[in-house]
């Protein structure tokens, strides 16, 4: 079971994500943004939070066009698993792997606190460790987490059961309270909240651990 965590200039959750994968039993490679391919045999790519390229132009815009992101897109198109958290979610929308975009928070403030999330679907390798309807506590830390998609896209996400998490008390103006979404093949998850920051009792909560354990269960070699 191998995970690759991408490191951009300005990433700051890369090590946290690597530790969370490691604790779930993955061997983890850190991959620099200038690499144009992923290590052989990678099962899942983690795109971490942070401020890649200083959020220049738009959050995630420059990172999405970096050499390694072409490899991440190819990995996703081959049916590989990808987890994008926070800036990672922004990057995945900028690549087009996931639909929609993340706008400036409606209240204009950077928000850093633990929020309640409702698990909207347990039908994915990421959320299979929860029950649909469970409420979990996961930290958010973002300025641009206001999920936007047009009406048709929102209807498609709902119709295909691709909304993974919603906010209990919408902190940022996201349409339909959306905190995380899945790709059509359910193998790519992008989410603004940070499960890797709730993956150890020392974090003050460990509700995020189930994401990594569930992935390990699905990707475990038979």
């Amino acid at each position, binding site marked *: 079971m191998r995970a690759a965590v991408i490191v951009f200039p300005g990433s700051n959750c890369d090590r946290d994500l690597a530790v969370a994968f490691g604790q779930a039993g993955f061997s983890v490679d850190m991959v620099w943004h200038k690499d144009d391919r992923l290590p052989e045999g990678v099962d899942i790519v983690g795109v971490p939070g942070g401020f890649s390229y200083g959020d220049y*132009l*738009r959050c995630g*815009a420059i990172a999405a*066009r970096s050499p390694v992101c072409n490899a991440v897109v190819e990995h996703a198109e081959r049916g590989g698993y990808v987890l994008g958290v926070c800036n990672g979610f922004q990057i995945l*929308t*900028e690549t087009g792997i996931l*639909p*929609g*975009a993340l*706008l*400036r*928070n*409606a*209240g*204009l403030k950077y928000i850093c606190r633990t929020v309640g999330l409702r698990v909207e679907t347990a039908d994915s390798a990421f959320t299979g460790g929860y029950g649909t309807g469970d409420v979990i506590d996961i930290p958010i830390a973002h300025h641009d987490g*206001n999920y*936007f*998609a*047009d009406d048709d896209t929102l209807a498609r996400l709902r119709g295909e059961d691709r909304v993974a998490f919603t906010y209990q008390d919408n902190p940022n*103006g996201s349409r339909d309270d959306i905190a995380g979404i899945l790709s059509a093949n359910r193998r790519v998850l992008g989410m603004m909240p940070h499960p890797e920051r709730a993956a150890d009792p020392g974090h003050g909560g460990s509700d995020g651990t189930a994401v990594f354990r569930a992935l390990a269960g699905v990707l475990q070699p038979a």
Partner: protein
Amino acid sequence: MKARVHVMLKTGVLDPQGEAVRHALTAMGFDKVEGVRQGKVIDLDLAEGATQADVAEMCEKLLANTVIERYEIEMV
């Protein structure tokens, strides 16, 4: 040769920064402002022979996120 690209949020996409600017203007006493939308201007220095189509491709692929933004190109 130069091009100037204007990037604006699409109509209907919430612009909280523009809204904050509107609030500030109103608070300062500028009571004739009914709405503010904030965008970006990007100036490009281009090599000879570059066309508007080249700039449009740059907009589509990087300079604008067409999910939320529209763009206009001025060749100058």
